[in-house]
C-alpha cells in the first residue's frame, strides 16, 4: 500500500497501476513484452508503445495476434535468457495456460500480469479476484506453481514488476502479478524504480549458462523442453520442481499486517479487497471492535505460518474476496478448525464497500 514517507515531489508521479507496470518494466531492464489488448489492462501495452523503449533500452514491444501467441513468444524469449513478459486479463490468461505450464516445466523465468476482471466466460470488464484458484492451484495441467504477487497499490504494481522478475530468475520459474481492475485503473502516487540496463548477450551467457543463445563449439547443446517420454525422468523433473517450490515457500513469503497486535478478530484479504477491508477495520476499531487485517502479498507462497499463529490468538476470522470464496480454502487449511473462518464476497465485477465488510464482520464473526 501507499508509503506516506515524505518524498521529493519531483520524483513522485501520479499514474495508473497499468502505466506503473509499463514504466517499471522498461526501467528494470525488460527485454521484451508480448501481449494482446484486453480491458482492464490495455494501458500496459499502450504505455509501452508510447514510451517507445526500442529507441532507448532496445526493449521489444510487440502486439501478438492472440494470447496463445504472446505466451509462446515469452517462452521463446525466456529460453534465450531474456527478461520477457506478457499481460492480459482473465479470459486472455485462460488462453495462456498451456504455455504457462510448458514454461514452468521447462524451468524458465518470465513475468505474466493478470489484471483480473469478472468471470466466468467472457464475463465483464469490472474488477474481480476470481482467478485465485487458477493462479495458485495451477491453471494449466500438471503439478506446478507460479510465484504469485498480489499488489494492493499503484506503488506495488511498480515494485512487484521488479520483484517478480528478480524472483523468476532466482528460481527459474514463471512469476505472476495478480492484480485486479481497480489497481490497474486507479491513479495514485508512485515513485518509479531506478533504471537498470538490459543484460548484454555476453552477460546472459555468463549468468545463465542454460540460455539458448547460440552454441559455441566448447559445450554441448542446451536443450530446453517440457517433454520427457521416460516416466522415471519425468518424475525426477517433478521432484526437482517440488523441491524448488518448498524452497520458495521457505524463503519468499510476504504479507502485511494492520492493527493486528491485540486483534480478537482477523480479516484476511488481498489486493483491492485488502484496501477496502483496512477501512472496514478502521471503522470497526472506532466502534470498539478489536479487528485486525492480514494481507497476503504473496499468494504463492501463502503466509501459512503467520495465519496459523493468529488461529491461536483470535476468536474468529473473516476472508473477504471478489469471488465466491477461493482463498478461504487456503485460510481454512491453515486454521484447521481451530477458529471459525467465515466468508464475505461479491462477484461478477462488484467491489464490496467498507460498510458491507463491517456488517459481515459483525454478523458473521463478532455476533
Amino acid at each position, binding site marked *: *500500500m*501507499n*508509503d*506516506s514517507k*515524505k518524498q521529493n*515531489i519531483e520524483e*513522485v508521479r*501520479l499514474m495508473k497501476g497499468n502505466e506503473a507496470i509499463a514504466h517499471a518494466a522498461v526501467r528494470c531492464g525488460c527485454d521484451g513484452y508480448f501481449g494482446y489488448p484486453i*480491458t*482492464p489492462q490495455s494501458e500496459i501495452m499502450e504505455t509501452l508503445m508510447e514510451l517507445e523503449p526500442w529507441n532507448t533500452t532496445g526493449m521489444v514491444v510487440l502486439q501478438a495476434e492472440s494470447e496463445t501467441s504472446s505466451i509462446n513468444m515469452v517462452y521463446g524469449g525466456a529460453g534465450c535468457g531474456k527478461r520477457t513478459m506478457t499481460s492480459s486479463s482473465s479470459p486472455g490468461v485462460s488462453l495462456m495456460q498451456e504455455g504457462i505450464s510448458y514454461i514452468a516445466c521447462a524451468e524458465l523465468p518470465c513475468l505474466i500480469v493478470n489484471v483480473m476482471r469478472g468471470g466466468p466466460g467472457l464475463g*465483464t*470488464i*469490472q474488477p474481480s479476484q476470481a482467478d485465485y484458484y487458477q493462479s495458485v492451484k495451477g491453471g494449466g495441467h500438471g503439478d506446478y506453481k507460479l510465484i504469485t504477487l498480489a499488489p494492493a497499490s499503484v506503488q506495488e504494481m511498480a515494485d512487484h514488476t521488479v520483484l517478480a522478475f528478480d524472483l523468476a530468475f532466482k528460481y527459474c520459474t514463471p512469476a505472476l502479478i495478480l492484480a485486479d*481492475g*481497480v489497481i490497474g*485503473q*486507479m*491513479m*495514485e*502516487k508512485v515513485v518509479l524504480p531506478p533504471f537498470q540496463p538490459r543484460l548484454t548477450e555476453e552477460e546472459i551467457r555468463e549468468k545463465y549458462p542454460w540460455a539458448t543463445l547460440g552454441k559455441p563449439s566448447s559445450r554441448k547443446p542446451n536443450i530446453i523442453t517440457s517433454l520427457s517420454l521416460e516416466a522415471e525422468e519425468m518424475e525426477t523433473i517433478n521432484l526437482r520442481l517440488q523441491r524448488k517450490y518448498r524452497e520458495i515457500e521457505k524463503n519468499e513469503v510476504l504479507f502485511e499486517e494492520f492493527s493486528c497486535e491485540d486483534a480478537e478478530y482477523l480479516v484476511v484479504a488481498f489486493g*483491492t479487497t485488502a*484496501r*477496502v477491508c*483496512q*477501512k*472496514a477495520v*478502521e471503522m470497526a476499531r472506532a466502534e470498539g471492535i478489536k479487528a485486525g487485517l492480514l494481507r497476503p502479498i504473496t499468494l504463492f507462497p501463502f503466509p501459512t505460518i503467520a495465519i496459523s499463529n493468529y488461529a491461536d490468538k483470535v476468536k474468529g476470522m473473516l476472508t473477504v474476496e471478489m469471488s465466491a470464496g477461493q482463498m478461504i480454502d487456503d485460510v481454512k487449511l491453515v486454521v484447521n478448525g481451530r477458529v471459525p473462518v467465515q466468508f464475505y464476497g461479491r462477484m461478477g*465485477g462488484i*467491489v464490496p*464497500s*467498507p*460498510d458491507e465488510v463491517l456488517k459481515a464482520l459483525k454478523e458473521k464473526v463478532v455476533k
Partner: protein
Amino acid sequence: MKEEIIIAGFGGQGVLSMGKILAYSGLMQGQEVSWMPSYGPEQRGGTANVTVILSDERISSPVLNSYDTAIVLNQPSLERFESKVKPGGTLIFDSNGFHKFPTRTDINIYRIDATEYAYANDSTKTMNMIILGGLLKVRPIVKVANVLKGLKKSLPDRHHHLIPMNEKAIEVGMELIQKVN
C-alpha cells in the same frame, strides 16, 4: 485533512479530467491522493464517475459508498449519489437538463449553472474548470496556485498556453456558484 469526493455526469463533460486535475493539485501540496474512475460500460456512452480522495494520511479504500462531497452533472448521477453524501457534507449540481432537484436538508446544496454559462460564452471546453472553481469556492481543499501547478505538470508543454484560460474559468466558477438551501 481528508476529503472523499465523487464527481459524476455524462461521458464527455470532463468528469474524469476534473478528477485528475484535483488529484494532481493534491499531489502538488504533498497529499496522498487516489483517483478511481468508472471504466466499465457506463464510460462508453452513458454516465461516467470518478472517486477522488485527498488525504494527509495513507488512503485505505479507493472505493467508497459515502462521500464528503458529490458533484453531479446529470439527473441519473443526482439520483444515484444524493443519498450517498455524508450528513453535513456538500452536494454541487449543474441543473442543465434536470427535472428533479435535490431534496435533502441535512447537507449543504449548491447550484452552479456552468453548462448554461459555457454555452453562452463559447467556453464549453473549460466547463469542468468552471465547476472546479465552484467547488474550490465552497470547499477550499486545494489552493488555486496548486491547481495551476498541477495543470502544468499534467499537461504536455504544447498545451501550457491554455492554462490562463483555465485559471479564468476557475474564477468564473467561484462567482457562479450559489447556495440553494
